[in-house]
């Protein structure tokens, strides 16, 4: 799917992080100091943020949204659409976006959508907002993207424990004069490569799904924990990410060198650096901003934007390309203009 809009503006971005920090070096006793240092050196993740059990992704997104609306002096009454992108909703039902409408004080006239996507989710969220605005249904849409994925990670699964972190974000998308080009793909044949098998209607939770076992990769998990086939995901990213970036650039009509910032999904430093090299992105244009937060799933791109805001001032991010890839499998890229976008510093959220 390729689609370009000429009337979309990203007005502002904010991110909220749980105050609790897990220093990965503290896992040395569990995994061995050498192994931990080796992983930190490759992934670039020194610490991850951990939401306490009483804080959900929507709480983090709410915190980010309040900060954003306050920082931009925008009244909740002037937001007329909300999209919540997360793999960790508050409930099976109702949709978390509806609860956020109420909690944020948005008008009851807003359409509210949940999009249950992960690492590609930010692109989906921006796309949904752009559609709502372009259709004339909305003028200003809040895209809340976040996960508290750590509670689905088995502590004995080092393949994911030392990479993922919890975070929430909020992005205000509005009618304006900017370009927003989107290229989006889905391939459900890879659904099993990144999955939490149990807990939905296909495989409800039971004593059997809670039972842990040692998998072929040597890590311990249950069917209620997240499983990621890192090799398959890497192959998928190598195959698709450079292509989708080139496609969205062609759609926008932007030369590769004219883009100041490429916001790649912050899977880990090794992957971001390698994908940037493979996609032949201009040197230094694909920042990594996850050293102290980890891979925040759907919030990883906006969280990164808040982390590197000082290195990428407005003139350097006048043209931006985002690329998300992961669960589904799903992937996409968007080209947007951020020269007048307000990007706030990340805020910490303390549990009540």
């Amino acid at each position, binding site marked *: 799917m390729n689609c370009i809009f000429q009337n979309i503006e990203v007005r502002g971005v904010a991110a909220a992080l749980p105050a609790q920090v897990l220093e990965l070096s503290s896992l040395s006793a569990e995994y061995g100091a050498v192994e931990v240092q080796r992983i930190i050196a*490759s992934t670039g993740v020194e610490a991850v943020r951990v939401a306490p059990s009483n804080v959900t992704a929507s709480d983090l997104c709410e915190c980010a949204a309040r900060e954003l609306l306050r920082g931009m002096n925008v009244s909740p009454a002037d937001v007329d659409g909300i999209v919540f992108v997360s793999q960790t909703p508050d409930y099976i039902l109702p949709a978390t976006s509806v609860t956020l409408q109420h909690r944020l004080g948005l008008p009851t006239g807003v359409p509210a959508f949940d999009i249950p996507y992960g690492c590609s989710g930010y692109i989906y969220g921006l796309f949904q907002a752009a559609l709502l605005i372009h259709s004339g249904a909305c003028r200003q849409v809040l895209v809340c993207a976040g996960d508290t994925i750590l509670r689905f990670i088995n502590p004995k699964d080092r393949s994911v424990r030392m990479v993922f972190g919890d975070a929430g974000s909020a992005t205000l998308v509005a009618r304006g004069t900017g370009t927003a080009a989107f290229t989006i793909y889905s391939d459900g044949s890879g659904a099993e490569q990144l999955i939490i098998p149990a807990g939905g209607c296909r495989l409800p939770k039971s004593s059997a799904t809670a039972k842990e076992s040692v998998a072929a990769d040597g890590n311990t998990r249950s069917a209620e924990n997240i499983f990621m086939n890192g090799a398959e995901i890497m192959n998928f990213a*190598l195959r698709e990410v450079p292509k989708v970036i080139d496609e969205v650039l062609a759609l926008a009509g932007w030369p590769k060198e004219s883009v100041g910032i490429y916001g790649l999904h912050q899977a880990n430093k090794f992957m971001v650096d390698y994908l940037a090299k493979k996609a032949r992105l201009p040197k230094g244009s694909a920042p990594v901003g996850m050293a102290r937060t980890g891979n925040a799933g759907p919030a990883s791109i906006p969280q990164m934007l808040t982390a590197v805001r000082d290195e990428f001032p407005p003139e350097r991010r006048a043209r931006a390309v985002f690329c998300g890839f992961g669960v589904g499998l799903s992937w996409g890229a968007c080209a947007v203009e951020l020269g007048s976008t307000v990007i706030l510093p990340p805020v910490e959220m303390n549990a009540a």
Partner: protein
Amino acid sequence: MTKQEFYTNLEDIADAPAGSVQGDELLRDLPGWNSLATVMFLTMADSKFATPVPAAKMAVCKTVADLVALFPGKITE
């Protein structure tokens, strides 16, 4: 790429001492052979050989020699 160059690349990826990889080693015995090293190996295959290695093929490799066999005709003596 020569076999020796391949071994040197593998030593870097698996954090093995220089000269320690000779071809017959079990991958599980390499100090840093883990899921992350597997991912790094795939990028090495991509950058040096422009050859995607299916994850299922990687998963059944037990030895360094098995990895070499993933690239027929591309690694010389």
